[in-house]
């Protein structure tokens, strides 16, 4: 039972990161209709910004988190302008390849600039322990969940309660119609990419002290994010959140009870199952093909 709970807790921590990463992915698809294969690289760059701020400039962790989010948010806007906009309206094949190219470019650029060697990011939170009954958890892990929860709440409030958020929801529903009623879709596109990138960056900075920061960390994370997004429904925000936790927990429980070798098999098998049975995801709606 103890193992179960330990693994469950670890799963929640991991799930938080997946949720953050997937939120951006799903929002970008929902509003821009673009499947961003480079989402993992935004996460990775966010982690590097965090590394630079914390390990080199010795800035406080939470402050570094905020700065990284802002920096990467701006970067996200640049990506939208130079990478996504030329791809809009093009068929899916082109769009996918375009973002794949971006992903290769960013990942290998990072290898060139930062070097391929993994880096350690130390924070004082890794050495403080929190006790929940018989389980002890480093403060850093608790922070991951806490910050994620806070960001999710903020995001939900933003989408539901503010005017901008309403505009975003309109664009997600129907981009052309939104443009007709006077919404500046370009601005919404930029905002979406800002948020999506900032969330990914947050994921990167939060996870950095737990694992190591390296240019290839985005790849694997991105694949898992795809699984989450399909599970939750492409374009579906609550789906991405719930999906993130489901996958994180499933992975860790598998590692704990079956073996750590097959833990990566689980998310992909879930994916194929979903695609066979309910491709629109747990929360998605079925959109019939128009002839």
């Amino acid at each position, binding site marked *: 039972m103890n193992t179960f709970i330990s693994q469950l807790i670890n799963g929640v921590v991991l799930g938080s990161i997946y949720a953050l990463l997937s939120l951006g992915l799903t929002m970008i698809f929902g509003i821009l209709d673009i499947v961003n294969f480079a989402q993992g690289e935004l996460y990775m760059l966010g982690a590097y910004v965090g590394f630079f701020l914390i390990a080199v400039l010795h800035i406080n962790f939470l402050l570094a988190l905020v700065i990284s989010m802002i920096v990467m948010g701006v970067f996200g806007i640049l990506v939208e302008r130079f990478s996504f906009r030329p791809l809009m309206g093009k068929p899916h*094949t*082109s769009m996918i390849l375009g973002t794949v*190219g971006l992903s290769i470019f960013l990942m290998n650029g990072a290898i060139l600039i930062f070097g391929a060697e993994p880096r350690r990011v130390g924070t004082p939170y890794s050495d403080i322990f929190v006790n929940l009954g018989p389980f002890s958890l480093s403060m850093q892990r608790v922070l991951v969940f806490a910050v994620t929860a806070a960001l999710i709440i903020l995001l939900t409030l933003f989408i539901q309660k503010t005017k901008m958020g309403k505009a975003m929801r309109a664009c997600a529903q129907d*981009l052309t119609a939104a443009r007709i009623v006077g919404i500046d879709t370009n601005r919404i596109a930029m905002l979406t990419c800002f948020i999506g990138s900032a969330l990914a960056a947050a994921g990167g900075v939060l996870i950095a002290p737990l694992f190591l920061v390296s240019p290839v960390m985005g790849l694997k994370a991105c694949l898992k994010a*795809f699984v989450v997004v*399909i599970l939750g429904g492409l374009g579906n925000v609550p789906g991405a959140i719930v999906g993130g936790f489901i996958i994180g927990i499933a992975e860790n429980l598998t590692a704990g009870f079956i073996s750590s070798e097959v833990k990566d*098999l689980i998310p992909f098998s879930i994916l194929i199952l979903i695609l066979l049975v309910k491709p629109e995801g747990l929360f998605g709606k079925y959109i019939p093909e128009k002839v």
Partner: protein
Amino acid sequence: MMKQKFKSAKTFLIAASLIIAFVIPLITENEYYLHTLIISGIYILLVLGLNLILGYAGQLSLGHAAFYGIGAYTSALLMMKLHFSFWLALPIGGIAAGIAGLMLGFPALRLKGPYLVICTIAFGEIAHQIFMNWESLTRGPMGIPGVPSPGEFSIGNFVIDFSEKQVYYYLVFIIVIIALLLNYFLVRSKTGRAFVAIREDQTAAEVIGVNLTFYKLTAFLSGTFLAGIAGSLYAHYIGFISPESFTLGESINILVMVIVGGMGTIIGPIFGAVGLTFLLELMRAFADYRMVIYGLVLMILIVVLPEGTMGGIDILRRNLKKPQKI
């Protein structure tokens, strides 16, 4: 008159390239050159296969490396554990990959757009995980060293040793020619036309009576069979295989060759495979910058020249633009 001239120029070019390709190993001893040509040949098979699936039938598959790997592992293990002859292991490797291709084909039938792509990626990842984790069979990440070459044969006084690069080149060459011919006939046949119909507009094709299931599965089967053959050739040439060679990155590599070379034609894959293999080898000196440039080129090419350099059919520019939803 112009068209006539163009056609005979084309035939001349084809004949000339064939002759040059045949003669190369006889006039050079440069092992590095031969090595790169052999690798290019293997990639031609891979690209031809993906071209059938994507360029002709319009199904974007980012899991192609999985079938490459299945062919490689099947063939290697058959020779090493069950002592099959290479000449049996090779086709069985292809068949194994083909069957796996059917397994991907079935779920793929109902999916379109990003859902299809993600499904193929997941399939590729699962295959990769199996290569990595089924240690008792594949030795996992350590890979399988010591994969035997097809062997040595003597005809009278003449010895043919397949571990020699010159000999292996001819093996690959012959198989590539066969594959190209089969490809050519397939494309000209009723099946080929059905592929194009599906690619251009799936719903319309269905309406006019094209059996989607049959043709999509055929595309997957043929394309992955070729990948399996390529895998076997690779394994017995290099002598070592590991899961690292069969990742999403490799699938992307092959896809780029299809795109750059030109989809929906026969010469496109050749151009893409050989050109990119040589280009990447040459850029080895700039290894650090190579992949960065690669990514940049991909991004630019997609926007500027979407049907590839030798693309014969305007498959991307026309028709598949998103319909306005007013």
